[in-house]
């Protein structure tokens, strides 16, 4: 579903991803772990199409299409969703307005009909309830003054409403309390489907107890240096990245 080959990316003339290879088939959940500054968020941003993230080498195939050739919003319409490590505050735009604008923009690109206001309201109400998000919060400007955990919940709410085909979760677990972690994980798990893929970036084994990955990849210094099954997370928890960092050096 998502096939990345030899991806090399520079930001402000600094090479951050250095020939990264990764393949996530439909229906699978892959986790990426790795030390701070390894390039995990850079991978997410590059796939989403952030300006200034210059791809100097490599190809990314997304469902048979060249992902890197698409504009940012076209990638979203094609089904790619990046849950931000640090979701942005959007002053002046109520969360509800933001999400509806995004949803209808995607539908338009796909040639689908817009979702009517009543239908949208009904849908968002249901989803908000399962994620334990208060409707009042959705009337406030998106993420402005929201706590770290609330911002992450908003990311998952948008995910649930936009129903993307491929999810990249960049440390969606950070900042969540124990109950919220469960609620958010349930939300993510509800999206698991044979035609959907996920890439879960995390530092903690804890999240992977809730969202069980099929594969775990270790990203060090801009490359995937090791891949394995779910047991790899336990090993990392016990021994850290030392072994892989030294190997990469």
């Amino acid at each position, binding site marked *: 579903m998502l096939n990345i080959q030899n991806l090399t990316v520079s930001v402000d003339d600094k090479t951050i991803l250095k020939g990264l290879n990764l393949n996530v088939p439909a229906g699978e959940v892959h986790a990426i772990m790795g030390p701070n500054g390894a390039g995990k968020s850079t991978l997410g941003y590059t796939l*989403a*199409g*952030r*300006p200034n993230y210059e791809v100097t080498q490599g190809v990314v195939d997304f469902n048979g299409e060249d992902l890197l050739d698409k*504009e*940012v*919003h076209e*990638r*979203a*319409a094609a089904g790619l*969703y*990046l849950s*931000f490590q640090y*979701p*942005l*505050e*959007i*002053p*002046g*735009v109520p969360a509800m307005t*933001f*999400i509806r*604008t*995004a*949803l209808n*923009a*995607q539908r338009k*690109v796909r040639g689908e009909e817009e979702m009517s206001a009543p239908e949208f309201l009904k849908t968002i109400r249901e989803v908000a309830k399962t994620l334990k998000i208060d409707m009042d919060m959705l009337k406030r*400007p998106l993420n402005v003054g929201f706590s770290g955990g609330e911002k992450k919940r908003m990311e998952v709410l*948008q995910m649930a409403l*936009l129903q993307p085909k491929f999810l990249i979760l960049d440390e969606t677990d950070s900042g969540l309390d124990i109950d919220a972690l469960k609620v958010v994980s349930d939300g993510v798990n509800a999206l698991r489907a044979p035609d959907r893929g996920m890439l879960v970036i995390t530092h903690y084994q804890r999240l992977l107890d809730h969202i069980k990955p099929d594969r775990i990849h270790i990203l060090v210094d801009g490359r995937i240096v090791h891949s394995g099954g779910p047991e790899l997370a336990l090993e990392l928890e016990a021994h850290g990245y030392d072994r892989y960092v030294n190997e990469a050096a």
Partner: protein
Amino acid sequence: MAFDLTPLDLFDPSSYPTRRHEEWKYSDLSRALRDAPARADLTHMQAEAGDFGGFYWHCAGDGQLADLQAAVSRAVQSSDGRLYLDMSDIGGEGTIAGYQGEGRITLAAGEHLILLEDYSGALDYAASTVLHFDLAEGATLIRVVILDEPESAVSVRRSTVTTAPGSVFKQYVFATGAKFQRFETHVEHAGHGAQVEMHGAYLLKDTAHFDYTTRVNHAEVDGATQQLIKGLVKDRATAVFQGRIYVEKGADGTDARMRHQALMLNDGAHVRAKPELEIYADDVQCAHGNTIGALDESALFFCQSRGMPEEVARALLMQAFVVPVAEQIEDEALREMVLNWIADKTEGFYAL
């Protein structure tokens, strides 16, 4: 204190201020208007009361405007207390038609008026107007001004406001600029405990010029002045904000706050801001802030990554930047009208 402020005389070019005048440093009228315009023929215009107590302010003829008080009195006494001052269809086609004049709006003790001034239209004109607002004790005036003037327009709109104890004056100006567009408001806090708000939002593109100049004098105790001015400037447009708040000796308990925030959407756009506070009283709370920035590119990317095309995302963020000004309008019908107007204007704004 009575204001000694008359309309700038359009028909006498030798009287035009130049950039050598400190107050006109950023707005060069003599460059925008080299010669005196022809006098507009306003005689055929009739005063009309329509929706919203509509009134055309131009029935005196020979480039001079009529007095307003009769219309104001009718509006104040009507059930909805509103007056719609329609200035939208004066001017010439191809030739600049000039008109000028003064109007006085006096509110007696405890009276309320909601005034909507609509300066829009498509004709060519040069205009110089002064509106005087005299508020008696406890009177309330809500003033919404739409300066949606044609690109070719040259306009200098002045107003004076004199408060009395406990009176309330709230002004909301929405401007798209013109060849030359200057909006001045001079406020005299002549009554203790008067409350003044003077807000504004501007959306400027191409070579539009908009100048919002406010002068506030706190002469009495416990007066309040609040200002929030926000704007978007793109292409080669110019925004000027000159705000001065002067607190006289003895005007203790004054609360004055002035904020100006502009977004420059490209290089080549200009924002000239000159906020000033001068305080000679004790026990006052005063603050002013001025920020000029660019559209937040990270927020833009965030919006796009959720599926919004760049132009939709830009329009959304730009609109979000200026709507807080309109959201302060308490009257729901007016607020909705202005919000729709802003949505309409920002939509045509994003194209690069």
